[in-house]
């Protein structure tokens, strides 16, 4: 048993690599050989994780991935616990259908981070995804529970159709952010375009945002300005075309 498992990208995939086998909780019971033997799909062909990554360590629920994984999809798919730290960018479907644990991405993520598998009604149902970069379209789409934090910009349709949970976007949130939101919170610290079906409620200091941002600063070492922690936010209720119990909180200053 090791303190952590490190996957180092040795052979860059020439096509899209679907590596939905990479999940911290799944690795907790596996030897290094068993991890290397896990199946992946390269292009449309079956392969193993060991064909691309060197595996160091075994039987640990803390997993570190080194290398540029921009062509690798579905990392952390269905993850239920443990911690996954990724040094570099990843492709689409990061943490899709995740239910627990934490993914800490030091790079950009493709579309549908924390979202739902194709055809599924629910996206992530628990856990935390911290993206220290930007995300593609529909990050957090149909999220049921959990936390997605994006320090950079959000793509189009961020938090689209969220059922509950929290999405924080520190940079610019893309168009259609929060559209079809049922419940849940989208906290926009930067520029955000309000969907027409959201209605302004008030400007106030939401106590849970202060708590959340302090938590992110302390636990995840995110650089959050104190003006954002204690600041005022415009609250927009929505999506009124849906259940309307969600909110878009837009930071407006101290």
């Amino acid at each position, binding site marked *: 048993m090791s303190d952590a498992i490190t996957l180092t990208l040795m052979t860059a995939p020439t096509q899209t690599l679907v590596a939905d086998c990479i999940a911290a909780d799944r690795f907790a019971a596996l030897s290094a050989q068993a991890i290397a033997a896990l199946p992946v799909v390269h292009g449309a062909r079956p392969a193993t994780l060991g064909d691309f990554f060197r595996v160091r360590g075994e039987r640990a629920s803390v997993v570190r991935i080194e290398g540029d994984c921009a062509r690798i999809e579905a990392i952390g798919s269905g993850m239920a616990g443990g911690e996954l730290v990724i040094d570099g960018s990843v492709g689409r479907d990061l943490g899709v259908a995740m239910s627990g644990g934490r993914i800490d991405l030091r790079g950009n993520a493709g579309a549908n981070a924390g979202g739902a598998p194709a055809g599924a009604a629910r996206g992530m149902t628990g856990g935390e995804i911290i993206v220290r970069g930007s995300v593609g379209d529909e990050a957090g789409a149909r999220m049921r529970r959990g936390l997605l934090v994006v320090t950079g910009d959000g793509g189009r349709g961020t938090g689209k159709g969220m059922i509950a949970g929290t999405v924080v976007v520190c940079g610019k949130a893309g168009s259609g952010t929060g559209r079809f939101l049922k419940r849940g*919170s989208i906290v926009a610290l930067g520029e955000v375009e309000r969907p027409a079906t959201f209605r302004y409620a008030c400007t*106030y200091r*939401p*106590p*849970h945002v202060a*708590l959340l941002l*302090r938590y992110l600063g302390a636990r995840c070492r995110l650089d959050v300005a104190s003006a954002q922690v204690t600041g005022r936010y415009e609250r927009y209720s929505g999506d009124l075309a849906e259940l309307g*119990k969600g909110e878009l909180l837009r930071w407006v200053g101290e």
Partner: protein
Amino acid sequence: MKINGVAIEDTFAEAFTMRVARLLITGRTLGWAREAAVKLTGFATSVIGCKCEAGIERELRDDETPDGRPGVSVLFLTMDKASLPEQLIVRVGQTVLTCPTTACFDGLPEAPDRLPVGRALRVFGDGFQASKVIGGKRYWRLPVMEGEFLIEETFGMLKGVGGGNFLILAADADAALASAEAAVAAMTGLPGVILPFPGGVVRSGSKVGSQRYKNLIATTNDAFAPTLKAVTQSQLPEVVNSVLEIVLDGTDGPSIEAAMRAGIRAACRPGVQTITAGNYGGRLGPHHFYLRKILG
């Protein structure tokens, strides 16, 4: 044993096992947090009449609270498991929820016994309430006229200690009061301890039951009442003309001991004759705090 010429009687304080919760109340300013805490802990001096005992443990700096605002730590004790959530739900709902700018957090996160205080109070939101899970803890957001009230879903409960005490036997009322004030000042802010009575001081210590009224569970401690020295089996020396008691509740025995040590040392002032303690012969309470051992 004597401290500053004050005799320390060879006896012990007898205390009881109670159930304790710690609440962290924060506010926009320390003043508002204190307002809520003072109301929350009002009429909570003794389980005899109030069904609970509560007090402010200490003030919290903004870097000691979950939401980064100034706050107050409150200890809340009852005699049994069932009545602690009952008391908390009623009191938090009427005092902290109503107080501007406040939020309410659990101060015993490691305690396995959880009291669903926030979960019960959430229904005040009439269906408009919402929950948030932050760092593995669930919080409830209740929409209120001011904005939002935030409360943690559950609060920890531990076995605590109630009824630690010592008595100050003084030559006159002024000396007794000055001694009690000095003791309270020395104990205020010590971790894990509250002094539930007004200003931390009790002037009307009680005995169990009544000599005359069958339905009373507690009546005046006539053995320590100076005006009754001539007509009762008094335990007061001739020179003693006033007695005040300090009662302590806490999260654990060592915290009570540490506070008693600080308080008794501070109480040994001019005009004080003896420091003693209240007990029931060791038959009722499992916690015995021997004065000389504590001070030794």
